[in-house]
């Protein structure tokens, strides 16, 4: 038995005659922060709903903590906190009352935990106000507080930074990043933005049109981003010929000269050689495939940022 907190096998959901989730094999280990990425409509929310037993798989299976969600849903959900899509709340109740309606259904959670989670998401000051008067970002924080209420071992957050302002995004990101270390949690967080996930995830899974197109450590994905060096100079064609004559790789596209990314010394020798041959260099810059363009490439270019 490996220490997989989430494992799906051939997970499929057919909606309207289409496989919106198509044979997904997710593997999320204890202590991971798993970034679950995909453009709009890729099937992230549908997958998450099946992980939580909110929707039934058309085929395939879901295991949480090595046990089947279909057979042991109630026992397993005690260890899971979740926020799916946009936040849910009872607008006529204040934040404390909202959390109390949830706490009553979580065995073994003290009342004082409500104040703790409110302070974690910085809502203490507004705790007595009716939630219908909250801003979108405050409702989102309340949703995260609700997910944290039961001190879950697994936290599933579907686009948790939706509607947050930049400082709120950073705050939540830091919070998520601290989860495994501080509380021993495993986190699954979905997003459309690789750059955002890239700042907190340890593992990344990318879905496109219901299919898992990538699943590995974040570093592996970063390794795939092909960086190039763009050199701006006065005579591209002559420089290109010179580079080839001296055994350097180079590429000339759209009148722009690129050399592959390499260590500083090698780039320095490229520059020195060109200058010695009388070429005037005005700029040397890194360019090309960012994480985001790798993502766009994998998901067929549609959607994303």
């Amino acid at each position: 038995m490996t220490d997989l907190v989430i494992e799906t096998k051939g997970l499929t959901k057919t909606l309207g005659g289409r496989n919106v989730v198509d044979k997904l094999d997710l593997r999320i280990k204890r202590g991971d922060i798993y970034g679950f990425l995909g453009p709009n409509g890729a099937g992230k929310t549908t997958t998450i709903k099946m992980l939580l037993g909110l929707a039934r798989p058309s085929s395939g299976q879901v295991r949480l903590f090595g046990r089947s969600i279909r057979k042991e849903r109630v026992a397993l959900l005690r260890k899971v906190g979740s926020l799916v899509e946009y936040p849910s709340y009872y607008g006529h109740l204040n934040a404390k009352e909202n959390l109390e309606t949830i706490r009553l259904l979580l065995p073994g959670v003290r009342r004082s935990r409500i104040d703790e989670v409110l302070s974690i998401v910085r809502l203490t000051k507004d705790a007595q106000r009716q939630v219908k008067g909250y801003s979108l970002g405050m409702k989102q924080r309340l949703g995260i507080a609700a997910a944290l209420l039961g001190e879950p071992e697994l936290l599933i957050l579907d686009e948790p930074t939706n509607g947050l302002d930049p400082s709120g995004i950073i705050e939540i990101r830091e919070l998520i990043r601290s989860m495994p270390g501080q509380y021993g949690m495993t986190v699954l967080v979905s997003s459309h933005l690789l750059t955002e996930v890239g700042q907190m995830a340890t593992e990344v899974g990318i879905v496109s049109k219901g299919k898992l197109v990538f699943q590995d450590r974040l570093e592996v994905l970063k390794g795939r981003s092909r960086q190039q060096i763009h050199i701006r100079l006065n005579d591209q064609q002559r420089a290109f010929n010179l580079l080839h004559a001296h055994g350097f790789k180079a590429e000339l596209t759209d009148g722009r000269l690129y050399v592959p990314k390499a260590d500083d010394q090698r780039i320095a020798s490229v520059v020195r050689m060109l200058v010695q041959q009388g070429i005037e260099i005005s700029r040397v810059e890194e360019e090309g495939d960012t994480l985001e363009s790798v993502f766009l490439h994998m998901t067929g270019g549609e959607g994303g940022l």
Partner: protein
Amino acid sequence: MRRLLASEFLKLRRKMIWFLIVLGPAGVIALQAVNYGLRFDYLMKNYAGDPWGYLIKNVSMLLIPALLMGMTIISSMIATLEHHTNAWKQTIALPVSRTKLYLGKFAVTTMLLLVSTVLVLAGTVALGLIFGFELQALPWDTLLIALYGAFIGALPYLAVQIWLAVTLNNQAIPLTVGISGLVLSMLMINGSSSKNWLPWKWPYLALLEPVFPVAAGLAASAVLYLLGSLHFARKDVG
């Protein structure tokens, strides 16, 4: 179950629901007070033999439509609490079985409506006493059967309303079905007794002959409740 009910009742805070629970019975009793106030001497002369029995009959004729209306509106309001921000996806992802959540919704609605019937009961007795009826002469069995026989006779109706309200986002459907049922039941009050098998007549039958509507009401509501609960347990959450 106690915590589930506590959670459900907490959700009712600051809602109109409690107000309606009191308003319904107050309306029923007030209308009877007006009815008697306008023609007190006439009624007293005609029904001198059984003043309590006649009052109970009058109250129950108003109570039943009010109860059906209450079942429609309250179950819809209880369900709307969850539909409004799709809180279902949060509630159902909690460690509680779906059949238990369904039972919770059914139980809260039933308890609220029972509070209403207790208020009607108290109001009826108070009204009789104000009119000068003798407390010793009060036929408690008739009163209880009239109120709770009707309640049980209407339970199948409640089971359908809860099912529709809880499983459909669009509350226009349960409201339309509920109000159509209410109108149908009023049209049937004076229909021939050969149609007594029609569930819409059951609440009204309790006053005449309680055994059948109570038995049929319990059996039919149990079946409808189980079907609704089963559907809710299997349904995907939107």
